[in-house]
């Protein structure tokens, strides 16, 4: 029987969660920002550890002072992708905060932090030392670009592997 894994995409608004899912599932990208309200669920089958699994990707609305994420969206998650925008350093703090809330809600499920928009190197705000210190705490961190596709497949493969091995 094909395993089904619920993966929640979490992060601040406009960090590129929807773009990452669209890039991964449909291989398309648009630089037009269209905010997500609620949640949109997409699926993609993957091969992980020699087995076929179905990733059910919950693209959840970004959180800010206007909108909070409903806990019901996160319940039952087998893994989380925490997305930050590398050109807005405050979004990494939001990703880390959401990680803590997720842990309390669903336990220590596999999580990968994605530093998205890696193509925008001139506007990059995240400090390498800070990233290194987060990695030294055992956090999985990858750089992605939904625009170029760089690191996107690797990111979803990483979370799939994590959930499969959990």
């Amino acid at each position: 029987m094909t395993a089904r894994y619920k993966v929640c995409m979490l992060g601040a608004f406009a960090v590129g969660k929807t773009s990452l899912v669209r890039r991964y599932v449909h291989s398309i990208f648009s630089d037009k920002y269209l905010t997500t309200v609620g949640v949109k669920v997409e699926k993609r089958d993957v091969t992980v550890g020699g087995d076929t699994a179905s990733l059910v990707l919950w693209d959840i609305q970004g959180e800010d002072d206007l909108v909070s994420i409903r806990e019901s969206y996160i319940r039952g998650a087998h893994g989380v992708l925490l997305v930050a925008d590398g050109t807005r350093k405050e979004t990494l703090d939001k990703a880390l905060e959401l990680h803590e809330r997720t842990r309390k809600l669903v336990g220590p499920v596999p999580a990968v932090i994605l530093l998205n928009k890696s193509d925008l190197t001139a506007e990059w705000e995240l400090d390498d030392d800070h990233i290194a210190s987060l990695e030294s705490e055992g956090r999985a961190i990858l750089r992605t670009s939904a625009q170029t596709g760089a690191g996107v497949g690797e990111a979803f493969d990483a979370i799939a592997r994590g959930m499969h091995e959990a």
Partner: protein
Amino acid sequence: MSAGDTLPTIFSDRLARQAAAELHAAWMLVGKDGRIVNAGGDLEHHEIEDARPGDDAADALPLVVGLDFGATGGELPSMKRGGGGFSDVKVFPVTDGAWLLLLDSSERSKQLRGMQQRAHDLELEMRRRGRDAQEATAAPTLTQVVADLGAAVYSLQPDGRFETVGQAPVWLDDLRRRAPALGVTPDAAELTPFLEGFLDEAREFWADGGGADRLRSGPWIETLPDGVEAPFEATALRLDDGSARLVVQLLGASFEQNRDLLQAARSTRLQFDALLKEIDKKELLLYAIVHDLNGPLSSIVASLSLLKDSQLDRDQAKDLIERGARQANKQLDMIKQILEVFSSDIASMEAFESEADKAPEAAACLRAAVETYRPALQDRGLVLDLSIETGGTAPVVGSPDRLERVLGNLLSNALRHSPAGGTVSVSLHDEGETLRFVVEDEGPGVPPALVDDLFDRFIQGRRSKGLAGLGLDFCRTTVKAWGGEVGYEPREPSGSRFWVRLPKAR
């Protein structure tokens, strides 16, 4: 006026483009005697291919010719053709008659007919519902009212199955294709992943008994089979009699309005944040400029103050004037550098030469830059080692004055960071398709922490006091615009090696 296959210029450009694009435009000039003067375009599409100059226009278009459109003209929309299509006929009066423009309107007419049919069907449906309501002997229940509002309502049965309550809304057909069991037994087959998750929660809510009377899922988006994304929300209700209902709603205009508002708020926030960052950069720049200009100015003021001292002999006075002049020139250089950086985006788009007979000669530019800095290098007691390995004329893509400025910036860097008595090596290498300029010094080199961002604006300012940190940014912007690249690497055993690679002019 003559007929032909191009649209007569009597019609506006916009109209001409529209017609020519896809509407199978045809036209006809009809004289005051009702005879065709000229006709052209896709006459066949409008089934008037037999129209010839001199023919009676009424034979071709009996419904149009003879009508009085006055001085301003008019239109007969959606005239049905014999073959089933539709044409719009626009009439433009002229002195000797009128132009008739025919445009295909079959698709629009089809849509209009579809809309009329749907409006008719809706009216019938409303009348039917009205009759049903009148015929109903009992007052409608809450769930029936909700169903009548366009929501799908299900009643949870003791065996865990769901039964549809009331009339199913039209959109449910689309959702059913996505969630085959919905409307029958949502737990008997695969649902949409979202509803599946929500029903787990809803069952816990119904089983719980106390507390709130409803549990809302929050909005979710489904992509329907036709590719349209539609927002839904589900609500689990616990009624007063203890029975359970599941309500699924297609969210309408209010959802769209909320999303638009949120979108606007967030876009504004992003713009605001970007603006703040831009202001920060400008403030930093302002600080750097003021700081950089202040140093030489202080020296100039000090020199002038000393000059007021009448005890100075001629040589002392001359020395002070020269010192002041040097500082003034330094300040002038800084101002030029700042202006260059801020115009570099524009400058990068300015003309540069890429043809061999007009392009700057690489060795000549390098020599010119070296000569500019030679006195300063000698003042510091530095040895200059110049090596040109191009063997003959080597034109390179770029403009001579800006290339000299780029190379001058690298030399200026080497001058600042070289220890007294050190050697500054300048060389030009032929790499086949490209030429490589290299400037090396024996200074301390660039700290590793700064290497990645070395060519960014203000970075050099962190490395050296009294500099805005704009020179390397200018080098990068300019060289990149010419299709070249610029880089840095540490020099062994110590020092810096800056290089510029530019394509050869052809």
